[in-house]
């Protein structure tokens, strides 16, 4: 083919095929509602595409966020501490007058990889993932969360029947 004709044919080809893409882009520009919104705006009330108003509502039910511990059910079995692959949970217990106390329950959230293995092994569902995921702070030490301030007595171990039903 004549190089001059080829040259103009190439230009025509490019314009022709790009126009297909441009029609789609135009369609999205004019017709489709915007999909992205700036992140904190999601939390305010107002014109929202995603209906959530609070942090808890924008994540799904099984979301793995910050770990929380419920001391009314924690039996101090140390299973979560043993299971954690990166050793971010530190628990210390002390026995005094036949009652075991949890004197330390630290979770280093800055290291946590949110794998959920500790939640799975917990026999009483005391340690669970909350839906909190915003963890920005000025000092990394703030992320090592001490869940026990003063010693807490351990909860009673559930009897076998209860544990199986739960």
């Amino acid at each position: 083919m004549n190089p001059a004709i080829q040259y103009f044919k190439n230009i025509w080809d490019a314009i022709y095929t790009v126009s297909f893409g441009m029609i789609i882009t135009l369609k999205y520009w004019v017709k489709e509602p915007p999909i992205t919104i700036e992140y904190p705006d999601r939390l305010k009330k107002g014109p929202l595409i995603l209906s959530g108003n609070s942090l808890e509502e924008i994540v799904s039910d099984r979301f793995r966020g910050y770990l929380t511990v419920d001391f009314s059910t924690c039996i101090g079995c140390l299973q979560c501490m043993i299971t954690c692959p990166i050793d971010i949970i530190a628990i210390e217990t002390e026995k005094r007058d036949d009652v075991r106390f949890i004197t330390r329950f630290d979770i280093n959230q800055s290291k946590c990889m949110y794998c959920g293995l500790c939640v799975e092994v917990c026999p009483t569902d005391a340690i669970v993932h909350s839906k909190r995921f915003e963890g920005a702070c000025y000092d990394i030490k703030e992320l090592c969360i001490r869940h026990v301030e003063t010693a807490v007595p351990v909860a009673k171990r559930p009897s076998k029947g209860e544990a199986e039903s739960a």
Partner: protein
Amino acid sequence: MAELVSQEMFLNMGPHHPSTHGVLRLIVQTDGEIMRRAVPDVGYLHRGIEKIAERVTYQGFMPYTDRIDYVSAFSGNLGYALTVERLAGIEVPEKAEYLRVIAAELARMGSHFIGFGAVLLDLGAVTPFVHALRERETYNDLMEMLCGARLTHNYARIGGVSHDLPEGFKEKTLKFIDHLEYEFIDEFNNLISFNSILVKRFANVGVVSAEKAIEYTLVGPNLRGSGVQFDLRRDDPYSIYDRFDFEIPVGKGKFGTVGDCYDRYWIRIQEIRESCRIIRQALEQMPEKGEIRTKIPKVFKPPKGEIYVRTECPRGEMGFYLISDGGKSPYRLKIRTGSFSAMSILEELSQGVMVADLVAIIGSFDIVAPEIDR
């Protein structure tokens, strides 16, 4: 007048280069705009995952397999879980097998969105990347519903999976794959795949013949792009892949030679269609009720022995070679990944191409840097 002196120039592409898909360094020897050689220098993302495996328990290593290939985290989960299960002879419940297949195929699609989206971004087309990422977002939402995490799923467990299907997951997934099959892929092809500028950038660039692909042990879509019909899901079925009916797309030289960049790109787009087919069949065949996890002891010690299990990941074959000495943690775990073998061919492929084409070649192999180094 003295003759002008010209010499070849060494340049570093990376480690921090946006189009190397992570931390990958290429030592590039150029003669003007023509490239003489590009030698990949891997190892910048080495995290010692294989060594970590020797220190943690068998169950405790599962979250680390997310991080081998973080773009499709579930594929690593599945490969590792299958390896330990085969070594210890653990049966997986029927429903868990289906859930695994669904999650694995979703992961494959999610990975391919990034795969072909990012290569287009490297070539300067920003819009298609955003379109692909929009679909990836839906995939992330689905996985969040299923297991609670958006990137590092940690969904598989030794002997099953961690969660059952949540309410509304099936409907949402069906809607998603309908949208992909009937709307997204055609629209995306019109948007960019048939664009003649893209075709000119991709066709006849970085041609890998079938013989050479086998010589360099390319795997997965990169191998199929060269026209070799080989897919572990069909040829060495693991899990329950033998129950599904799907095709294996191979490169046919759509706009140029067989095995060029366009073929590798085109394979990935077609694989999304096949993944949709598999998910549809799996959702239909899946039993409504059933166990999702075989109970294994908390202190899990598989018998002595060694095993090699390979699975078909979005980036090709991922193999786990596990040696057990009967203890709580593996004696040795070797992981073989698809991106690593794609690196080996780069040096030969880059000889004599333009510098701009190197970006297309790297992108078309769909490498993920953490997978190269582990």
